[in-house]
């Protein structure tokens, strides 16, 4: 296939993915808006007003970037894991596998589909947050770059999960037992300065620490970790996830017999 044909195949996958999550918007877009509204009310308004300042900002201002990032992470991940596993489960992934479309285009199509859902949910959650606080953006450039890189990273992670999953239980195990704890321990609700030194160092193994803090820097201009290190870690994790995803596709593991 020439480049133009590969591009057509890529846009076909992306369009199909977007149509899929828009068709079931009550399952894909609405829950994040409701959940985040509850977070804003409970953690930001009710509990936050008693906590006082965190990192030099009101607690509501402090948690908003983390909560937006949480929505991006969970949505970009769950879009790819559920869509690709669904395609495996129904056999419709064979439509792609028998076609001449290249593996990198298949991967990028699903990833961009997941990224687009992450972005759409980010916009929805940001709009909801405006009912609770005034958002002033420190650096639009950093915000956009971090959002794109993070949603790409977790869309790739969702893809790997989908390839390994054998049942619908398998696509909820990682989000429940790995992703959610990493998010909660990734500095969404607290500053790393509050942790004892040992646990602060342990936290540095958590990729969510870097994405949350890089995004918080973009919004508020403060971060618990150095920005170059945060970007470096996100790039390293994304590269590893991309490389492994391509390895899975090229080897045909769990996709071809």
């Amino acid at each position, binding site marked *: 296939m020439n480049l133009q044909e590969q591009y057509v195949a890529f846009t076909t996958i992306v369009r199909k993915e977007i149509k899929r999550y828009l068709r079931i918007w009550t399952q894909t877009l609405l829950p994040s808006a409701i959940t985040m509204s509850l977070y804003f009310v409970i953690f930001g308004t009710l509990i936050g007003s008693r906590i006082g300042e965190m990192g030099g900002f009101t607690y509501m201002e402090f948690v908003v970037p983390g909560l937006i990032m949480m929505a991006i992470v969970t949505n970009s991940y769950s879009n790819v894991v559920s869509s690709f596993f669904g395609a495996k489960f129904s056999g419709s992934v064979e*439509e792609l596998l*028998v076609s*001449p479309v290249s593996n990198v285009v298949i991967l990028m199509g699903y990833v961009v589909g997941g990224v687009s859902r992450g972005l759409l949910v980010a916009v929805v959650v940001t709009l909801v947050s405006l009912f609770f606080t005034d958002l002033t953006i420190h650096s639009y450039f950093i915000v956009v770059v971090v959002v794109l890189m993070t949603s790409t990273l977790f869309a790739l992670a969702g893809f790997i999960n989908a390839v390994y999953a054998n049942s619908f239980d398998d696509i909820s195990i990682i989000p429940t037992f790995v992703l959610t704890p990493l998010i909660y321990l990734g500095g969404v609700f607290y500053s790393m300065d509050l942790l004892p030194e040992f646990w602060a160092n342990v936290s540095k193994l958590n990729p969510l620490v870097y994405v949350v803090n890089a995004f918080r820097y973009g919004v508020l201009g403060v971060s618990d970790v150095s920005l170059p290190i945060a970007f470096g870690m996100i790039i390293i994790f994304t590269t590893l996830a991309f490389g492994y995803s391509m390895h899975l596709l090229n080897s045909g593991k769990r996709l071809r*017999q």
Partner: protein
Amino acid sequence: MIPALEIENLSKVYDNDFEALKGISLSVKQGDFFALLGPNGAGKSTTIGIICSLVAKSAGKISVFGIDIDEDFPAAKRHIGIVPQEFNFNQFEKGLDIVINQAGYYGLAPGLARERAEKYLRELGLWEQRDIPARMLSGGMKRRLMIARSLVHEPQLLILDEPSAGVDIEMRRSMWDFLRRINAQGTTIILTTHYLEEAEALCRHIAIINHGKIVENTSMKELLRQLDREVFILDCLEELPEVITIDGFLIRRVDDHTLEVEVQKGQHLNQIFNALDVAGVHISSMRNRANRLEEMFVNLVEGAA
């Protein structure tokens, strides 16, 4: 002329050490209508899976219109359309979207994709159902949807794995007509089926695979010529005498109005009719006891077992 499909010494050993294919070789001519028959587990679906890249081969070589799949599989895939045995589309998508998406995976621009989707959905009688989610279509419609999907990039080689499974007789006949039409237009067709009547009605060449080996590979005419005997059922107008014999034929009285006659290779039916006429028995109709090919198939498969 370059064959549409050339398979040389193809082997497949699965991870559980099951040897599904033991070095099979096949050649399918361009424009042919080819049947690949075999009992369940013989290796038909494995062969098809390897041709369309869903199964990795262990050894051997496959060329599609002269393109070695090891050298340029994407180019080879452009020539292949596949209709699998199982429904393998997203049941929540509309039929039109399924076909248009498949066109997109082959790089067809959206305008052309829609045009082709309309063409094949109309030809297969699904245009009125184009906006219905696939799960709501009948079994026959789903199978025709998969045929439309497989043709949208206009492949030169169409492979159908059990296309008549779950399809009623009327639908099967119209599908046969459609397949004959696209074959007449130049599309090479490979068919696996359990309905041997289907293979006999449609295919010009046939290969029989059993236990991962090709046990027969010849033209349909040649295969049928090899039949050394056929059994016919004769329905008679008058009540038959208790004992009836015809010299040189094995004959059995089934009931008062039915005879079963075994005809060996070289014998001809006129002898039977003449003898029955002399005996005052008049034949109202005649049919094979079993499909001719079915008998041959059973002999070959049992002989190889």
